[in-house]
């Protein structure tokens, strides 16, 4: 029994381990995709055959604060040799934080078989597995995507406003305790990227995203994750929304709740604190006292 299958996940098929990836590096039905915060990591070395997906350059619209549209997604995939039936496996730095973000965007377009390499780049490197600087190219894929589905796994500001007043809902803020409390609103020296107000959305529980992983960047077993989330009333019977600063860290929690714990209704509010904390008139709770 592999480590993944022994961890009690609701959807273990959403994860693969490094050994599985090593065995499928040359599998034409599998495309390995690296997605990092550090934009130059891929250039320093990557898994043989892996292609880079950059969250800024590839997944975001270059003008509007939104994701790529259907035609752009189809082009993105086809150019990387990805077809509708390709198994895509994401991995990356920062405990797979950006890999889950990329997977979430792929799921907005309904890509059927998208997985995460448990442990991410750090585990692959720690195991001394092969890395290369060679950038592969693949024959164009054939991709036909539906319109982006912004209803099932994505939440917008006005939906969050209703959400916090409704019964049977839960909201989880996955930022650091300092951001949650309002002690910190932005990165020092970067007011232009911050928010005008500090604190959190009323009713939100604070469960920092990285509590879901172990030191080796692999996900904690389901029992530990259940304790982590249900201990703060983030339970599977509720309609759950996760948020952070711009929706990337919360995509990690979305992945955990959806695939590892099998919660049936989880959305990611990608507007997150940079939208909520700058909006006029929205309610905010601030627990930090200067």
């Amino acid at each position, binding site marked *: 029994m592999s480590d993944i299958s022994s961890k009690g996940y609701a959807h273990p098929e959403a994860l693969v381990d490094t050994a599985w990836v090593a065995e499928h590096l040359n599998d034409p039905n599998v495309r390995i995709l690296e997605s990092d915060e*550090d934009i130059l990591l891929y250039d*320093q070395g990557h898994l043989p055959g892996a292609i880079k997906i950059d969250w800024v350059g590839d997944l975001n619209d270059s003008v509007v604060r939104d994701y790529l549209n259907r035609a752009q997604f189809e082009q993105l995939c086809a150019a990387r040799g990805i077809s509708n039936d390709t198994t895509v496996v994401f991995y990356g730095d920062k405990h797979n934080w950006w890999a889950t973000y990329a997977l979430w965007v792929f799921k907005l377009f309904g890509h059927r078989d998208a997985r995460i390499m448990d442990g991410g780049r750090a585990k692959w490197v720690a195991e001394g597995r092969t890395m290369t600087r060679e950038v592969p190219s693949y024959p164009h894929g054939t991709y036909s995507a539906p319109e982006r589905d912004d209803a099932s796994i994505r939440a917008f500001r006005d939906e969050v406003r209703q959400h916090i007043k409704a019964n049977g809902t839960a909201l989880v803020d996955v*930022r650091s305790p300092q951001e949650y409390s309002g002690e910190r609103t932005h*990165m020092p*020296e970067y007011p232009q990227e911050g928010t005008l107000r500090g604190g959190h959305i009323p009713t939100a529980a604070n469960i920092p995203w990285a509590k879901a992983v172990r030191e080796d960047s692999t996900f904690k077993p389901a029992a530990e994750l259940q304790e982590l989330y249900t201990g703060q009333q983030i339970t599977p019977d509720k309609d759950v929304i996760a948020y952070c600063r711009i929706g990337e860290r919360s995509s990690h929690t979305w992945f955990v709740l959806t695939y590892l714990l099998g919660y049936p209704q989880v959305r990611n509010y990608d507007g997150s604190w940079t939208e909520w904390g700058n909006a006029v008139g929205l309610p905010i709770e601030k627990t930090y006292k200067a």
Partner: protein
Amino acid sequence: MNRQASIERLFDHYEHPRNHGHLDSAQVVQVGGQSDCGDRVVIYLRVAADGQTIDRVTFEGQGCTVSQSAASILTDMVIGEPLDRIALLDENGLIDILGRDAVGTRPRCATLALTTLKAAIASYQSSQRQHN
């Protein structure tokens, strides 16, 4: 400089950072960044006796290749330069120096050291005004 050449220079500075480490004689120690979700740079600044030029600047930090290599390149550039000239160095200019093709999609990382250095200079100048 093409993208690959820019990347090779960034790798070189990342793997062999210049002006790296604590500076005991620094007049200003300025912290920039956010350790929780990204990059962190600490700038140690010592201004020359004339009060107008950078005598020594070093950095420590952690984070991505871009933020740390940019700090190394920047500190190499500014030693001996007038403080006022640093104030005029804008973020876009630094991104061009680093290689827009390589770092353009990470402006926050690329300019972290610069904004931190500017904050250090502002702190130095403020303390000098109070002293005088």
